């Protein structure tokens, strides 16, 4: 199962997100490293592993958040599930799928996160949140997706060799 290396990767990504990336401001926003890894892995390995990575990545993010536990877990599980759906394969070659889903997945993840937060009574503005946080993050994740893909494809090939072609 990919979680042998998935858990450390997602945990370190979440910690990097908290300790480093939150201070980085590029194009008015910052990338969502864990979200990007979940989308990329989901595209490489399909929805089944995508939801598991989304769930684990979400728990890692929730452990480093002062908000309600489960906000990121729910949001990233939804993203992991949708990014690995068969209809995503109709979007074109892997590079196109990856680029589109990195951006769309980020927007979707933030949308789910915002909606759940609003339902729980948090003071957040959907429009402003999209404008100032979600869209810059989508652009940055779009730009960073080749790096995430190269990194995770290495693990994908390695685990596929070990498991005798289990992966997609």
């Amino acid at each position, binding site marked *: 199962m990919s979680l042998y290396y998935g858990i450390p990767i997602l945990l370190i990504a979440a910690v990097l997100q908290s300790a480093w990336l939150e201070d980085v401001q590029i194009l008015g926003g910052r990338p969502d490293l864990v979200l990007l890894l979940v989308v990329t892995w989901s595209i490489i390995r399909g929805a089944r592993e995508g939801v598991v990575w989304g769930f684990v990545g979400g728990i890692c993010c929730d452990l*480093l958040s002062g908000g309600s536990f489960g906000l990121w877990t729910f949001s990233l599980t939804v993203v992991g599930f949708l990014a690995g759906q068969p209809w995503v394969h109709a979007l074109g070659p892997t590079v196109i799928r990856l680029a589109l889903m990195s951006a769309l997945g980020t927007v979707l993840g933030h949308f789910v996160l915002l909606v759940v937060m609003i339902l729980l009574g948090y003071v957040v503005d959907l429009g402003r949140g999209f404008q100032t*946080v979600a869209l810059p993050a989508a652009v940055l994740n779009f730009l960073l997706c080749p790096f995430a893909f190269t990194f995770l494809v290495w693990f994908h090939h390695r685990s596929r060799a070990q498991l005798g072609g289990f992966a997609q």
Partner: protein
Amino acid sequence: MKRDSGPWLAWVLLILALVLIGLSESGALGPAEGLLSFVVAPVERAVAAIVKGVGSVTGKTRDVVELQQRVAELESGNEVLVQENFRLREYQAENEELRRQLNFHQENPTYGSIGVDVVEQGCTIFPCGDVVGQDTNPYLRFVIINVGSQAGVAVGMPVVTGGAAMIGRIARTSPNLSYVQLINDPASFVVAMLQQSRVMGVVEGSEEGQLLMTNILPDEEVAEGETIITSSIGGMLPRGLILGQVESVTHLESDLFQRAVIRPAVDFRRIETVLVITDFPQPDLDELVIP
């Protein structure tokens, strides 16, 4: 075949995530979070140390580093002096207030009066923590510090830096980490007053990250540059912690109250070391109960 198991697994995990949210909202998830934080806390500390180390080394010559250190020392010294100045002004204002009360008492010798001291004195400033990370949720303004319930930190305790500048309150704790809700978080509210004029109001955060003072009565005069400090009303915070200075004041005719934009006393993105106030003198509530 295995890919077919995606939907049911997704539903199970989604329902589990919703259950986690429900348990978290009800406060029943504390022990499990505490257990998981034992894994996260060392990683967070290590990565924070590496990030801090790498950030200070890369691309800098020795001279630049030395100059930066010198500037940091001077800035730190200046910050301490500014905070000290604020404190002295607070003592001056308090002194004047006590003199006025004394005069009132001397001018009205037939009145019975009870002197009350609601001034914060000798706070037990106990755990000192480093900020090891920001909130991973970009819609919340929290910082994570590396002291937790094992060091005596509890929810609601005020957190200060640079002398007496309040940055926020403890919102959640785990054994080794605490989550500080910054005063500029949209859900943060602090009862405050202006240091010189003693005008009361509520300091609250906004979605843009601005700090605002609201609920200022329309006939009150608020001067730009005036210092805003915490009030002891409610007993949740010690009096005299510095929140910021008035930057501008607005009062629309349609509004019931005036509103002031506040320049925070600290740069929330550059907080490194903080102190958690675990105890402070409070009025004895039993004395307020009418038998």
